[in-house]
């Protein structure tokens, strides 16, 4: 081990000088298009059904019964059994294998008389669950299936959890804003925050496109993505900050590119390990965790993307509008890329400076 020379190191993307920020316009346009598509879909759903994404019963209230059958069942038979008992519009979905199904009922169904004491009242969610059990047993036979899990959430709890989730996302946003203001200069902070907001929007669009059911676990994934994306942006900005301290005579554009190139090996490695863990979860951890893993996997991608193509350009734009000091203003005006030929010329200059 001691005899190996540095040249034997396995290094990827070592000493690269790609101009990552050059295609920023295309990137920004495509991501804005992606987000817009997502927002349009969300808006359409909201107008049509009152909810923008597909919520789990955590947020909407209702009853969920997970059933495991001995043999793959006839879904039509399940549905008719439920309809006959007054549980209409139940959502029956396979859950993982073709023997596992979830039955989800939002409708309260017929009134279930509970002995002589109750006035006729709409049944609560847990009564619906018991009812589903009985109906299936009556129609399909009791030994054919067994109920693995029942969840019944009242509407009040559901709406409270929904509100809590939204507040959680907003609060974590604000807290990270405060932390960034504390640790970085305001320009970096604003750029990082906008990048994070971008990630929330793209993740929402992704959730909508894949029609992922939004449960508490998915909200946890969204918050983790926020943290992860911020990580990534901070790594780059930390390097930018350090490079700026060295007072090189290069524009912020170049410093940014340099920082991205320098942190590229680290980024690739960290994303690789995080993605490996997420992939393991996605493929092996079961159906309950799968939505979480999907969101996390996308989050890694969008987090990386936003650090370069959202935080970067925003930082540059802020710098142009509110430069840090007079010398920078001058250099910014002189070197700010306005045309492609401009950029090409500057790139040649920068390359010669580096070598």
């Amino acid at each position, binding site marked *: 081990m001691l005899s190996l020379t540095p040249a034997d190191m396995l290094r990827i993307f070592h000493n690269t000088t790609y101009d990552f920020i050059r295609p920023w316009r295309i990137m920004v346009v495509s991501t804005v298009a992606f987000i817009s598509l997502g927002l349009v879909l969300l808006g359409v759903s909201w107008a049509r059904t009152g909810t923008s994404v597909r919520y789990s019963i955590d947020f909407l209230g209702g009853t969920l019964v997970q059933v495991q059958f001995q043999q793959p069942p006839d879904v039509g038979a399940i549905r008719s059994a439920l309809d006959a008992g007054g549980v209409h519009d139940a959502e029956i979905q396979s859950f993982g294998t073709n023997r596992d199904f979830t039955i989800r009922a939002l409708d309260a169904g017929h009134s279930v008389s509970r002995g002589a004491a109750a006035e006729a009242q709409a049944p609560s969610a847990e009564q619906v669950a018991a009812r589903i059990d009985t109906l299936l047993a009556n129609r399909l036979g009791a030994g054919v299936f067994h109920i693995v899990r029942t969840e019944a959430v009242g509407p009040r709890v559901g709406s409270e959890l929904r509100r809590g989730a939204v507040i959680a996302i907003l609060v974590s946003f604000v807290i990270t804003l405060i932390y960034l203001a504390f640790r970085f200069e305001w320009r970096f902070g604003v750029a990082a925050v906008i990048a994070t907001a971008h990630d929330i929007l793209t993740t929402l669009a992704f959730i909508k496109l894949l029609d992922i059911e939004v449960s508490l676990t998915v909200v946890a994934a969204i918050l983790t993505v926020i943290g992860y994306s911020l990580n990534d942006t901070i790594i780059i900005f930390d390097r930018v900050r350090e490079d700026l301290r060295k007072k090189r005579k290069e524009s912020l554009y170049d410093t940014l590119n340099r920082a991205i190139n320098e942190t590229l090996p680290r980024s690739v490695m960290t994303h690789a*390990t995080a993605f490996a863990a997420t992939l393991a979860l996605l*493929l092996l951890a079961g159906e309950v965790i799968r939505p979480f893993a999907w969101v996390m996997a996308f989050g890694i991608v969008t987090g990386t993307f936003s650090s370069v193509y959202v935080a970067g350009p925003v930082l540059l734009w802020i710098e142009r509008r509110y430069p840090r000091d007079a010398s920078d203003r001058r250099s910014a005006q002189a070197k700010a890329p306005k045309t492609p030929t401009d950029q090409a010329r500057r790139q040649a200059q920068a390359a010669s400076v580096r070598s």
Partner: protein
Amino acid sequence: MTDLRYRLAIIAALIAASVWSIWPRPVVRRLETTNNVIRYDTLRRIPIRRGLDLEGGMHLTLEVDESKGVVANKSDAIDRALKVVRTRIDQFGVSEPVVQRAGTDRMVVELPGVQDQQRAYDIVKEAAYLQMQIVDKSQALDKVLPHIDAILKAKGLGVTAAGTPTQTPSNAGVQSLFTNATADSGKTAGDTTKSRSVAAGTSRRGRHDSAARKAAADSARDSTKRDTTKHDSSALAALTVGPFSQLIQQGGMPGEFYVAKSDVPTITHYLSLPEVQSILPPGKVIRWATDTVTIGQRAYQTFYVLDARPIITGEYLVDANPTTDPIEGTKVDFRLSREGGRRFQTETGRHINDYMAIVLDSVVMGRPPVIESAIGTNGQITMGGKDLQAAQDLALVLRAGALPVPLKVAEVRQIGASLGQDSIVAGLRAGIIAIVLVVLIMVVYYRFSGLLAVGGLALYMLYTMAALASFDAVLTLPGLAGFILSIGIAVDANVLIFERIREELDRGKTPRTAIDEGFRHAMSAIIDSNVTTVLTAAVLYQYGTGPVRGFAVTLIAGILASMVTSIFVVRTFYMIWLARARSPQTISI
């Protein structure tokens, strides 16, 4: 050198402490009591608490039920209810139950590993409010019947389809009741005898009111009910022909009324109308009974008109025990306190020859027995046709005490134990694959240094598990996923450090210096990025519930542990290596 020794000592101490805290130890679990026998089971387990989604069990969120009356001080009521529910759960025999407040007007009950979830649910939720109330003998309801009928007619309710003849009431019909009726007899309290005292039957006066009837909007509903009415001579005759009174019949004692089973929802609906409620006789209440009476071919449900003020309530109850009697079925014997017994005696003394209803949660249990003489401290509640288990559960609930406020279920989750086991297996599978992939990536790319990082990773996993065990945190399925995810993210700190070391080597620094510089410069980035993740996890903890909270806790524990291992432990490994290699020219990184 001593610096190195201190470091090694700390690391060794942490390892020892961690291993000790997660070492499998025998855990004694109380299994559910059946037939009042408590069974114990011991098994060896890693002492990390598992959430319901990994263990199986039941989660209940209960809140104050205000449908029957506004509750003034909800927070205080929940506190008192907590005590009662805890006692009940305690007697039920669930290991490691959780009974806690949640917010100002809610509480959470978690019963991990409970097998019979329906029983547990019933026991927790039952209000168990016991009251003894005297059955009204002043014909208070009879007096207001015409008014009720008038109100209902004014609302356009209670019609028969055209063509169905009205039943003519007659004394003969009522008398036939007394000879034909076969009722489940409830048991009397305490010292009274078994014979059913027959009240002086008040015969109904017939009323012909057919002319006043008019069609209602919901005639369809009523016509289906009417379809079941047949000319059954042994059936009870309707008392009057008003919309309310035609559906009820006088029972065997004053204040007792029969309603055909099919008409029960209608009557319940009528009774719930505010106009009807306002003219019900003051100081009296109407309560349904558990008894059903079969007369001829039809089944009837009973309701009673009772004095609103109970002569005694369950707060004086000190003990309750289930018994079975071959003739009378299952019962619960209860015993009152001395004070209660005295009160009871006085009150019953005042009501000799009256009927006393035993009312549990606003339901009359069995048939009100007659008070033949004053009753002391001992009494019985008839369970009707229910089995011994029901009697045991009722006795349990009466012993623990009545809920001070009625509770309703806001949320219930029941997870089977097999699902929990499957989730653990799936989680472990994913975890192993994730670890293998991460180790491969690190070792292939960073070689020897990668090995050091993997060593740090192993310790990281140990420390995190130990942290969860010692802080009594709950491991849930999302928590397990978070742990696996954090394995992928924990190496990030080391990647930062290693890349930095590589850069310093590029600049020509010696390995020793490069290592120092690497750790130093990477620190700020590591701290910043970890702090943001901890902050978002903290927010998640605050606003999340149950499984998601487990995720937040695992993530935070993992990040703190990873900072310790990446920075402190791996540095120590390097120091060991440097000490042994003396002046290395290169490092394998």
